[in-house]
Each structure stands twice: as structure tokens, then as C-alpha cells.
């Protein structure tokens, strides 16, 4: 089995609290690249600062042209789609919104699927749109692992439900069990 190399997380409505719980539970020695696309709006710098208080890994904004880092949480900047080039460097785009969003989870997940292939894990958390459903399907289609928060445990059920309906999931769990699962899947 391919060892996961990247964890891509998408969330929207209610996302801050969900991220706090999930990132808070990640092992401090997790070697994977962790990417976050959140529609929470406002300053991503502040979001990173707040999340870093709850997370043992560094939390930073993803920087254009710089390589995606292992053992680090990197958050998509507001107003831009976050993509990866094949050499796993970040690229940004101000192309049209997707699912009424920029950054869009579908766009980031689609790029992650093509770059990390079976080494990708996609995680869909709470949210009120259907963004991420197609992207998660792409991660699965390339052999990656799909994790979805149970809709009943989500602040907003629409997004995890859309992901389940479109992509299905390898794991569908309440929020507090997702980090332990990721640690199991990812630690050597």
C-alpha cells in the first residue's frame, strides 16, 4: 500500500471549530504535508495564528512558488485558488470561482489528486455548500483515501453529505475520531 504523502482538508461553515479539533489531534511528528482549504473568510494570517495555538505542527499560509512542506499545515490564502505544480510547488490562481468559492476545495483537491495520486488523503468536514465533492471523487479515482465527517456530527451537514453522495468514502467518522485515524494511516 502507498504510504500517504499529503492530507488535504476542506471545510466551510463551522470550519474553524472543526479544524481546531482535527488539527489539534494530529501527532506532532506527522511527516506528511497537510493542506487546508477553508471558506471561513477573513484574514488567513489570523486563522493560521489561531489554529497554531491548538496544533502541534506549524500552521502557515501556503506561499506561491514555494515547495509544499512536510510536517506543516499550509492554508490556502483567501481570494485565490490553491494549486500544486507537478514538482509540488504551490501555484495560485484568481480564475473564476468554483462552487461560489475561491479558494475552492474542488480545485485544491483536484490538483492534490493529480500530484500525489495514491499518496493523497482527502478530508471533507462541515460545510453548507457542495464544494469538495468532485475533488474528493478525483482523489479516490487516483487511488487516494477519502475521509468524510459524518453529516450528523457536522455543524453544517450539506458538504459532507454531498461528498458522500458523489465520491463515497473510505472512512466516515465523527469529527473527534478523524485525527486519530489520520495518525494511524500516516505514521510509520
Amino acid at each position, binding site marked *: 500500500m502507498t504510504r500517504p504523502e499529503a492530507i488535504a482538508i476542506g471545510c466551510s461553515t463551522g470550519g474553524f471549530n472543526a479544524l481546531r479539533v482535527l488539527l489539534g489531534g494530529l501527532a506532532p511528528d506527522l511527516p506528511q504535508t497537510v493542506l487546508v482549504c477553508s471558506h471561513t473568510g477573513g484574514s488567513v494570517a489570523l486563522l493560521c495564528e489561531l489554529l497554531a495555538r491548538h496544533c502541534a505542527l506549524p500552521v502557515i499560509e501556503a506561499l*506561491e512558488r514555494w515547495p509544499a512542506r512536510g510536517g506543516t499545515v499550509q492554508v490556502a490564502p483567501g*481570494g485565490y485558488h490553491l494549486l*500544486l*505544480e*507537478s514538482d*509540488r510547488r504551490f501555484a495560485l*490562481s*484568481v480564475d473564476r470561482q468554483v462552487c461560489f468559492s475561491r479558494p475552492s476545495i474542488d480545485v485544491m483537491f483536484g490538483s492534490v489528486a493529480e500530484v500525489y495520486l495514491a499518496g493523497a488523503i482527502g478530508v471533507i468536514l462541515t460545510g453548507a455548500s457542495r464544494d469538495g465533492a468532485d475533488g474528493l471523487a478525483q482523489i479516490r479515482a*487516483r487511488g487516494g483515501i477519502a475521509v468524510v465527517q459524518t453529516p450528523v456530527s457536522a455543524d453544517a451537514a450539506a458538504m459532507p453529505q454531498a461528498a458522500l453522495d458523489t465520491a463515497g468514502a473510505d472512512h466516515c467518522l465523527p469529527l473527534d475520531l478523524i485525527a486519530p485515524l489520520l495518525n494511524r494511516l500516516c505514521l510509520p
Partner: protein
Amino acid sequence: MIPTPPNDLELEQIELDLFVQALRRRHGHDFSQYAPASLTRRVRQLVHDHRCVSISALTARLLHEADFVTQVVQGLSVPVSEMFRDPAVFRALREQVLPMLASYPQINIWQAGCAHGQEAYSLAILLEEAGLYERSHIFATDFNPEALQRAREGIYPARDAQLWSRNYLEAGGSQSLANYYSARYDYLKLHERLARNITFTSHNLVSDEVFCEAHLVLCRNVLIYFSNPLQNRTLTLFRDSLVRGGYLCLGLRETLEFAPVAADFSVLDAGRRLYRRYARGVAEGAA
């Protein structure tokens, strides 16, 4: 280690290379130095919008249908913008840059990648309100002829007005944005007098050279689509166009760390991506 891409992606890469080559050889548009991730997305979107079965089918139309290239170029350029986008940047231009430009008898501004003209008109308003517009000229350039035509018209959907007005006020606007346009039906038209010192003209950052001596160059969210070498080439154009001590304004999330020519610029306001061409041997205060 990065694994070998699976067959479908490898095949798509070949098709994409051939598409780019056809576009260059048949129509003279060179996208070979564009960063691949976004270019691929846009070409896929074209395939989808034109109901082609593959990129190769798109390439065939590009080669054989006379007018198809217009639509392709349209799909490959970035028309997304708004007036006073990132108001803090326009506030910084108003407060930090315009007072310095005021010392020049004639002010030239090059806005590269003007799309539908929203930023060029925003600049015109800034200059107007600073009392500098009469001696200013804005060269607003884009490689996309359709976008330039739209820019010259200055007509936009009225639904944008609310956001733009808010941006304008956040950018330190002293009046109401509504003073600069007339609204009819679902559209707003910017007053034609705003365009009196703007030249909307074709310029391709990939292949064209310096064409003016500029005191300020604005190029926001264009370089994000360029590979490192093309980013560096473009920044070199900007450097050579700028007077010593001239100002450069880039998009808020653009990274200069991989462009050697960045060493020729000093940082004026890192957060707002404002730079100056080094004025070697020239007193900074005189710039």
C-alpha cells in the same frame, strides 16, 4: 520521490504541449512559459466549453478554423478583476506613492494585464482626486484584444457597484464612487472623461518589449500564472521601463524570491507588495 504520472496524465501532457505549439506556430501566441497547473485548468475548461472530446480536438479546431483563436485567447486570459480590489493597496498608493509622484512634471503609469480596465479606471480616480490626473498618463495593456475593447467601453454589470463602492471608500475615496458613473438598466458606465488620459493598448508580456518610461508599474495577479523564467523576464521589463526610484505594485500574494531581478528593487511596503527600482547614486528624496 515523485512517482511517474499515470498514462492519462502523461497523454494529456503530450496533448497540451502540442496545443501550446500549435497556438504559437499558427497564431503567434506563446504560452510555453506559463505555469502548467493553471494553464492546464484553463485548457481543460476550453475543452469542456467547446464540447471537444480532447485537447487534441481543440488543437484541430485551432489549426483549421480561422476565428477560433479569438475564443481560445479569451479562455486563456484572466478577465477577473474589480475596482479598487484590495483597497489597502489603493490606499497605500494614494498615501505613499502619489505624493512622491507629484514631484514629476509628467507622470507615466503602466498597468500591465489590464483585463476589463477596472484597475486602470481606479487609478484614474485616485489621480483625479489627488489633483494629478491632468499631467498623468496611464498605459493600460493586455494581450487580449476582446478584453481591451471591453476596457475601452467602461461598461460593467450594475451588481458590481456595491462591492466597488465599498472598496473605493476603504481605499480612502473622498467622494462617492457613484459620482464617476451613470447607471442604466443593469449596467453602469464609467464617465468617459475618466478615460481621457488612459491609452488601452495591446502588449504581450511574453514577447513584447519596453515601450514607455514609467514612474509606476502596476501588475497584479498576472505573474502568478507565469513560470519562474517568464516571471523574471517580465520583472526585468518592468525594471527597464521604470525610472530610477520608480514604483512597482504587484498582487498581494505574489512571491519574488525566485526572480533574480528582484535584487534590483527595494521593498517599500512588503505587505502590500510595493517596491521601488533602486535609485543607485540618485538621492531617494529626488525621486
